């Protein structure tokens, strides 16, 4: 049995991605609740010792400490998924997973910022963040639409991968910033399939049924 610990905040969508994969893989993991709001506990010395950037999630696997959502997903899949389905190793599927993980880490950050501002921040003008979020969701929607033309239903492989996990919360939580799902039919169908995966878990803000 692996000795896994996740430093977690329930309302954080990046932590949710790690929780999702742990659940899909059926892994036992100790969950340590971190008081992010209002406590900002992740920026106190004990947590800065684990991640000097002061961010969650943090995963420990035995003595190994790992930070960065995409790296955590990749590590869990590589080290604890013998089927290699969640992180396929063969040519194009692997490259496509990497490409969407990069998109998630670099571009989808905007959707996280938009949501944090509207949930926790002072009232302000989120218009440009929301417009940017819409553009990103449209890129995702049209990628899946085009893959659907050849019968593909997931982002990177003929089955779900950590790319789908990395992308799911941005769409599922988009209503928090006022982006309805009406205009993303391919993402809607994908998110229904995603919710139907065995081991799927919700987080606050994502309704159980859809």
């Amino acid at each position: 049995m692996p000795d896994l610990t996740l430093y977690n905040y329930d309302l954080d969508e990046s932590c949710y991605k790690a929780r999702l994969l742990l659940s899909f893989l059926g892994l036992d993991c100790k969950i340590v609740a971190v008081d992010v709001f209002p406590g900002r506990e992740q920026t106190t010395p004990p947590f800065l010792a684990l991640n000097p950037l002061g961010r969650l999630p943090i995963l420990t696997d035995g003595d190994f400490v790992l930070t960065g959502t995409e790296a955590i997903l990749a590590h869990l899949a590589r080290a604890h998924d013998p089927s290699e389905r969640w992180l396929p190793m063969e040519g194009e599927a692997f490259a496509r997973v990497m490409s969407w993980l990069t998109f998630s880490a670099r571009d989808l950050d905007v959707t996280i910022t938009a949501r944090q501002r509207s949930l926790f921040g002072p009232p302000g003008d989120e218009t440009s963040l929301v417009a940017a979020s819409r553009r990103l969701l449209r890129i995702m929607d049209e990628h899946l639409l085009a893959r659907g033309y050849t019968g593909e239903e997931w982002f990177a492989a003929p089955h779900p991968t950590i790319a789908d996990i990395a992308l799911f919360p941005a769409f599922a939580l988009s209503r928090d910033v006022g982006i309805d799902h009406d205009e993303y039919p391919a993402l809607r169908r994908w998110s229904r399939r995603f919710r139907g995966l065995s081991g799927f878990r919700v987080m606050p803000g994502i309704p159980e049924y859809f």
Partner: protein
Amino acid sequence: MDMQGHWYPVSLAHSVEPGSAAGVRLDGRELVVWRDGEGGAHVWEDRCPHRGMRLSLGFVREGRLGCLYHGWEFGADGQCSHIPAHPDSQVPKAIRTRPYPKEVRFGMIWTALSAEPPPPLPEDAAEITPVASLYLDCAAAAALSALRASRLPPFRAGDHDAGTVFETVAPTLFRLSAGSESILVGLQAVAAERTALHIVIEGPGVVYAGQGQSHFLRWAQELRHRIETPSLNSANRPGEAP
């Protein structure tokens, strides 16, 4: 555009799977489109008779649409058939959703804002291959004039010099043909400055699935790019009819 008395497409048919629901907007009004287990389509006001929450967030179970909030369930006739808090009592007949006319044709789901169904849509072609729904930041009239001005590149080689013929099939349905190939475009007036175009190929999947669909998706994305990039609209419009 006069919204009364016409059918409007609100979704590609395959975008709402059997057993699921989706929210759509027509002339600013929020509607829910859902399909029962057999695939029958229903269009209602997107408002739960209980507390007015959006029904499109709900779930479809055994041919009924259930509201996410307190689980009231509504049958295909719009009648409330189950209230979880009072499972044994008879639900009063007055508790029902507001239905709109509905039709599935040309690979699209249609509705109208009038109480009575508008005059019937024309019969559809035998085989349709879906392409995409495009959502645009402009009024329906602007989307229509961009569509009129666009040139349709045929998918199959050999037809390359064919000119584009634009044809009105119904008040909100248009055909663009080039040689022996044609697509249909349904126009949804989402709100005053928001329009959706629902695009299908008139032809069988064996010919168009995959590359043919991608070909017309690229055409659609270029059309959208021209609409969204105003500087392209004044001069130098590559790919457009003179």
